[in-house]
């Protein structure tokens, strides 16, 4: 196959960027999209040009490192598929493909197709965990958890943190990412003690990082390589409401005591 790619090139966060056009020959249908880009980079290096920078690691759809907007869609045209899993057989010989970085206010471009998603770590720091120190856990079977509950928690926990939800959202919202973690920990009894604080703190951080609000476009679910459901956003809202209400009451009480 012969493919023409129009790729976003940008030298740095504050530099202007533009699409550059390249031709890649000898593309095999079984190649992954990233292997096609590897091939392009080999050509560029041989010509003494700067290769196209993009992130990837596991190349099997689980680490969440890769993330490209391919022909306008986060992770490309296939449903439930990361950029690294996408195969070239889904494109026609001679096709022109546009490749851009995940774009959002919360994800500044580092270079070319590489973006900075450290905001996700900072959101997690606000409560994406259960506070338990090593060594203080009771026996694992001491607290039975119904299979349906564990399964639902696992559905939410499957998030790979790639950020496609943000890239796909017209508002650049991270609600699906945050909702998935909040839902997982709200479903499990272990997470109960911190439920109220967690949702509020994580949402506040999400706002502070410049992610937009959710206005129910559901583009995030469609783009999610793990098909995480927008139902988790509904749960996030309810958890947030309860948390915010509890915080309000705490403040009132404190004021009363003054």
């Amino acid at each position, binding site marked *: 196959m012969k493919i023409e790619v129009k790729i976003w090139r940008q030298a740095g966060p504050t530099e202007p960027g533009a699409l550059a056009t390249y031709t890649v020959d*000898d593309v*095999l249908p*079984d*190649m992954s999209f990233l*292997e*096609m880009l*590897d*091939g392009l980079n*080999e050509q*560029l*290096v*041989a010509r*003494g040009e*700067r*290769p196209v*920078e993009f992130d*990837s*690691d*596991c*190349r*099997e*759809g689980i*680490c*969440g490192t890769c993330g490209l907007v391919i022909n306008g869609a986060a992770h490309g045209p296939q449903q439930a598929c990361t950029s690294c*899993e996408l*195969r070239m*057989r889904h494109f026609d010989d001679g096709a022109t493909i546009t490749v851009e970085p995940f774009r959002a206010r919360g994800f500044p471009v*580092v*270079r070319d197709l590489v973006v*900075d*998603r*450290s905001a*996700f*770590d900072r959101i*997690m*720091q606000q409560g994406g*965990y*259960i*506070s*338990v*120190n*090593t*060594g203080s*856990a009771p026996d*694992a*079977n001491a607290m*039975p958890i119904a*299979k349906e509950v*564990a399964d639902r*928690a*696992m559905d939410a*926990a*499957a998030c*790979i*943190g790639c950020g496609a939800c943000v890239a796909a959202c017209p508002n650049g919202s991270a609600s699906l990412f945050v909702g998935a973690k909040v839902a*997982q*920990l709200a479903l*499990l009894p*272990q*997470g109960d003690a911190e439920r109220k604080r967690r949702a509020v703190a994580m949402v506040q951080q999400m706002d502070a990082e410049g992610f937009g609000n959710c206005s129910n476009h559901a583009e995030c679910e469609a783009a999610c390589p793990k098909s995480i459901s927008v139902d988790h956003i509904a749960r996030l809202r309810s958890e947030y409401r309860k948390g915010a209400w509890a915080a309000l009451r705490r403040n009132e009480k404190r004021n009363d005591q003054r």
Partner: protein
Amino acid sequence: MIAQSPLLDDRIPAGPIQHKWSEHKAGIKLVNPANKRKYTVIVVGTGLAGGAAAATLAELGYNVLSFCIQDSPRRAHSVAAQGGINAAKNYQNDGDSVWRLFYDTIKGGDFRAREANVYRLAELSAGIIDQCVAAGVPFAREYGGTLANRSFGGAQVSRTFYARGQTGQQLLLGAYGALMRQVAAGRVSLFPRREMLELVQVEGRARGIICRNLVTGAIEKYAADAVCMATGGYSTVFYLSTNAVNCNATAIWRCYKQGALFANPCFTQIHPTCLPQSGEGQSKLTLMSESLRNDGRVWVPKQKGDARPPQEIPEAERDYFLERRYPAFGNLAPRDIASRAAKAVCDDGFGVGSTGYSVYLDFAEATERLGADVMRERYGNLFAMYHEITGENPYQRPMRIYPAPHYTMGGLWVDYNLMTTIPGLYALGEANFSDHGANRLGASALMQGLADGYFILPATIADYLADHRPDGLGTDHEAFTTAAATVEERTRHLLGVNGKQSVRDFHWELGRIMWEQVGMARNEKGLRQAITDIRTLRADYWRNVKVGSADTDLNKNLEFAGRVADFLELGELMARDALERVESCGGHFREEFQTADGEAVRDDPNFSHVAAWQHTAEDKVPTRHTEPLDFEYVELTQRSYK
């Protein structure tokens, strides 16, 4: 009689094996809680081992600096583990126990691991599951709400805990959560997108590291009271492997070149159920979960070069070679045995697929017996993944699989406290050599990483720190300046070659040599050839590699170039170690040492030892040291899976 090298004091505590760890822990010196925050500990790596260690050390009050290559600690390669994690909980009441897990691990490793370490691992396994559940890891459960288990990798008990096909991801997110909590508490500083390129020693102790900031290209210096390597395995020395593309040996290789001994480098594991290679541009091989072997039957056509589609090949003309050769275990034969058998039939010309290097894994019989719905429920995800990658539908035609490099049992030599031969330098997880001997059992790497990270290192490190009070050493010390200059010089050198061949070409060629000669079947002639070939390739690399753009900021090709330079040295050491180990054991199969039916033949009197290599000088043959392995509790037997 195997000589005990004076460099290799294993520091295994005396006393009965059941009490060694508890008594050792009780005797460990403690650091005063008020003083802990004055100690800085560097942890390189944020996989299960590094993530768990960094979080736990911080919980204890130490000041921790955590480094990783990825943009977030949550993406460390542990995330890709699928199948599960072992623990001797005996929740199934099927006769499991600490003792049995210990025994299975020693035997699975073909009697090339330390009894005391393995016993401790088995002993700590149950606590790992408790810890993970408390942290919110959504393990699979039964309808009654208790934890579910499955049997894995030929074990005769069900002791594997799992979270769908994403066990590694869920365990890692648990450790990552704990780490994030400590970041928020101000006790861990995160340094993502950093690559450690040098170890800094001051007065013979590990005191810091030099990193390249992978975004800005800046060479950065970090000082500490102790340094821990949790940098994973080195299967990517083979170029194509199941590991992530950024996995590398650079961190531990720097330590080796600084004097830390490297143990059993040739012990590598080849996984039997991976997707075969399809073309030249391929960047990695994908693992298909071993669980598929529970219901799949492995076969090749009886006739060489039979080009008919598999469905058209009648039963009588198929060779179910695993069932034929290993009637008792059949398709569930251990990883090394299944892998070698597949390679042998392909080398003999019976392989299938466009390259002739794959064998069928056929679900027709199971589908008929259990129905398509059951198959979909059990393997739906895997079948879909296979379909997407290969374009072939496994519900209609058998899968094609082939073995691929997967795990490295070798690594930095460590004592019972996980300390390397450099004082203050620790190694944990896949980066050390400690617990799996010559072959790792399925679902035991996650267990070892978390045992090291959550429980062992945080306890043992105090013993060292208590004796080495913080002294205010800063990165202005000349040792840091010298080390940083070495790194800068190496980068300049790499960029300066500006030859004609790409980094990838060299890596590909190295991988080919390794796979052919230092892969799952080895012999003296091939290993000698490999050493010569790798040396030639290495010399050529430094004359002829083209890194491309000379930019020193974000430049992934430069990152790869540095890693390949190290692989070109490590590959030779692996070949040398395989050459000197004149026996077959576990994943190390020397063709000269096999029974008439192709089983590995060990040489216990001469090789029941750990081989640890000491770097001497550039391009000099390193020194081989030995640590004898004594077996007090288990009897050495020949593995038989007939």
